[in-house]
């Protein structure tokens, strides 16, 4: 990133919204792909999905058990990525364009 951005400028808000929305949509796409894969396997490969592992059919494992760690994993990835991006966004801003702070506040550009 060459020059710093005006916090109230057009470019800063566009970068902020685009990047965050891109991240959210990617994670949502993974969620849809995971759910869709199970649905389609159930419909078109029922014999695979009714195979038993440790007594329980694959279809029950995937939806009844396996889906939950996937949800938590996706949420975790999103939390990390979005936080990292926000730190990055703070660094992009031209400090001179920020509103003045109270004397006891830490300087916004230096957080983390």
């Amino acid at each position, binding site marked *: 990133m060459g020059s710093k951005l005006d916090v109230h400028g057009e470019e800063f808000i566009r970068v902020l919204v685009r990047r965050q929305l891109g991240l959210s949509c990617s994670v949502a796409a993974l969620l849809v792909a995971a759910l869709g894969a199970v649905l389609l396997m159930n419909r078109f490969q029922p014999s695979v999905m009714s195979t038993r592992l440790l007594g329980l059919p694959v279809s*029950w494992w995937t939806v009844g058990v396996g*889906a*939950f760690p996937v949800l938590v994993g996706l*949420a975790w990835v999103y*939390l990390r990525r979005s936080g990292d991006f926000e730190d990055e966004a703070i660094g992009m801003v031209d400090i001179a364009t920020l509103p003045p702070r109270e004397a006891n506040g830490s300087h916004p550009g230096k957080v983390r």
Partner: protein
Amino acid sequence: MGTQVIPVIFVTGIVLATIGLGMYGTRLSRTTSDFYVAGRGVGAFWNSSAITGEYLSAASFMGIAGMLMKYGYDVLWYAVGYSAGFLVLLLFIAAPLRRFGAYTIPDFAHGRLDSIGMRKVAVAFVLAIGFFYMMPQLKGAGITLAQLFGSPYWVGVVLVGGVVAVNVVIGGMKGLTLVQAFQHWVKQFAIMVPLFVIVSVTGTGVGATLTAAERVGGTDPVPAVSQDLTAHWPAGGAVAFTSDGTIVPRTDTRATLTRAPGATSPSPASRRVTLSAGTPFRAAKGERLVFAESVSATIRAGTTMPNVIDGRSWSRPFGAMTARFGDRYALLYTVSLLVALLCGTAGLPHILVRFYTNPDGRRARLSTLMVVVFTSLFYVFPAAWGALGRTFVPSLYANGSTDLAILKLPEQVMAAAGSPLAGAVLVGVMSAGAFAAFMTTFSGLLMSVASTFAHDIYARIMHPKARASARLTAFQIAAAGCAAIAICLALLIEEFDINLLVGWVFAIAASTFFPLLLMGVWHRGLTPAGAVTGMLAGGAGSIGSVIYSMLVELGVAAAPAPLIGVLTHQPAIWTVPLAIGLMFAVSRATRSSVPANARLIMLRLHAPEQLGLRPE
């Protein structure tokens, strides 16, 4: 008789704990801000516990197990969908909504689009969703209490409604945060620990439990009713005979008799019959009796337990629930249900109001992640209850009361193992969990509906200059009034099915508030005209579909063609895209009315707090 006192003690305990914690929380609650959103200083762990507590309603605690017992595999999608809804909320709504900083969803609608008209539309949908959602909670309380203690239906409704109203009136949200966090852990304990006890008694592992459930009506015949079984059916209740059988009504009753395809009989496929009081009615294999009015009746010993679907279709995808309009449309039905659950969570006003209690956007994300973890820990268990219920308490199938599986199962299994005392204790734990479920969800809904009256209608629309004390009084009056209305409404709906109502609320929320929030947060070009058009179209489409489906279920409207049936029974697949698409298109057409401060608001929604752009 002695052991029956134990569940009473547990229920009394949970009610007293709720009142006590509410009063303790009240002492911490002082200002208007505290009252509505707990002063925004609640820690992530407690806030997540409270959100989860508020979310896990009667439908989750009792309904999923009951529905899974009835329909099998397809119901697993409910559990996953309810949990995945919070992932969608995390991805698109949580942090920006917190950063916007407002008390209620109508605040967001008004502030984001700078339009008082938006506030009014949002208020109308908060009230519609809120009252619609409160009714099944109170109904759950009524039937549970009736089941446990033989009390009339209204006792549970009035008891739970009254206790929660008092708590909300005196405590506001600070009181509630503590209560709801506590009740979440009560529910988690109740869905988990008694299950371990039961499984250790029956000695079945995960796979064996499913195999046993599958065998019922699969390789093994459905058990016959061993001794005369008397039960109560609401209007619309059905008895599907899987073999020739006999039923004796206590009162004269009208019914419709339908015949499964393939059954050989000269009589037409569907005809009206009248059953006379005390006269045995013989039904043939494959016949299905639907009562036109509520009735008590006795199924004679030797009749195969009615309403049990065969084990094979129970354990496979696209079974009786999703294929109700034919196997061809089962995939469509499942997808549309998932759309409603995934998007609906992010549109529930009583859940969304909780996001304002986080101190900042990042911690709003962190508490949402924790909610995904907490809900996941909860939703793995109801399926096991449902599968065990199929094997051990098949008598619940007779009148469709499988929602009571979580209460009946411990009693049955422990009595068979020779320890009815332990059974009573477990039933007590489950009853406490069920009460925690009705009370938390009802209090959250009451909070959001009452604050809509006090904050949005009274303070923002009618008397913008009202003082804080006047607003607090308005809130307390609104809370008491709304609770009274909800209690009256719930007394009228004894005959409606809890799960269906709750699933439909999700479809309505997904078609109204979810599009508003999604577009409001991410689309700078959203205009008031676009937002209103989208919400009204989504709301009309989903509410219209729901009402139509209810009329069909009650036999008032004729059954539609299968495709129309799917799209009205699960409307989210077309109403959600319709609302979002209209918001986009109409906003484009009315470009000139994009609010002047839209860019500033986008910055407020998305900029990290560290930049110090907010006045707070």
